[in-house]
């Protein structure tokens, strides 16, 4: 096998690992964006955050939101908004930081943070 081909195949291996780690990172972020309160479970996304902010801006203190199971859940809007916003910011910041680290990694070992020993 030529040296050039060996290098190309090593690169293919690196790309597979990189793509796999990116998918895992996304899965981790998605897990962090699930929030449960008062028997209901919500997926935190920009739509939910904006809707809750809108209800707050309309002067509402509590509201009934439909969770991922279609169950109606009554929530205190102030507390709920603070919680989902902070979770969203934390999860996406972590995702951004980890994604950036991956993008800079140029070998399988550096992607996985492993050493030879």
């Amino acid at each position, binding site marked *: 096998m030529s040296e050039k081909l060996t290098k190309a195949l090593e690169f293919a291996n690196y790309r*597979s*690992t990189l793509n796999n780690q990116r998918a*895992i990172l996304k899965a981790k972020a998605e897990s962090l964006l699930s929030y449960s309160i008062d028997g209901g479970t919500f997926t935190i996304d920009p739509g939910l955050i904006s809707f809750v902010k809108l209800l707050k801006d309309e002067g509402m203190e509590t509201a009934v939101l439909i969770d991922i199971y279609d169950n109606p859940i009554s929530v205190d809007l102030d507390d709920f908004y603070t919680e989902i916003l902070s979770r969203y910011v934390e999860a996406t910041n972590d995702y951004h930081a980890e994604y950036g680290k991956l993008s800079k990694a140029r070998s399988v070992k550096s992607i*996985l*943070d492993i050493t030879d020993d």
Partner: protein
Amino acid sequence: MTKGVLMFAHNNSEIDYFRMAVVNALLVKRHLGVPVCVVTDADTYKYAQETLGDEIIDSAISTIKIIDVIHVLARNNQRIYRDTIHKQKHLPFYNLNRCDAYDLSPFEQTLLIDTDYLIMSDTLSACWDNKNSFMMNYAWQDINFSRYLDLNFVSPASITMYWATVVYFTRSEFSENFFTICKHIKTNYDYYRGLYRWSENILRNDYIFSIAGHMINGLEDRSIPQLPTTLYKTFDYDDIHSITSDSELIFYVEKADQPGEYILSKWSDNDIHVMNKWALNRLGTELLEQLT
């Protein structure tokens, strides 16, 4: 309402399920902070006392329930255990009492999990006090993300397959009825195998729970609510490279369409189903050291 995790652990000649249960119970303690009950048999428990010692067992598990094993059934229920593509064996698999989970659980809210479903996050805490009295998953994800595995239905002409790997249930009328139907299906397994059209002989709780889920809601497919998490899985074609912390593992994941070729995959802060039991057994001691 009391909350806790329930596991079943019956060793066979090669796989030490109880050791896996102890490791997982320590992970549960760390990440979910709830008590663990393990259902086992006298032989398995005696072996665990000899190999692990009472101190470690007691530090991990709050309740141990010892039940009688029907040895003839245990011997006859054989499944293939793979340790990557390089090794496979037919071994007995004693899983006949999972349908008794409702009767055996000491908790009012129970998370029934496989011993090889490693709790590496607090994600499942979202189940507690949920409005749904019963939840289990049909959605699953291979951490390879590019392999194709046809595991979405009980058989191609049948219903959606739910995984009995993780099940949340409360002490309720719904749960009681669900497990009553499970027991009925288990007793009449051959009949339901023909009706729901799968060919394997092995008694599989995934099938029993899928059919019970189908029956309990008037033969409606996908009628049981899913857990608030995806079921992430590695398969018995994969292996474990190393453990770096109580919430991080590195796997050898077999490449899609390239048997025996692997990529390394770092998995952290998310629960994971590890189907290569030998890999878990090999890592058992190291995991125990990390956790005790």
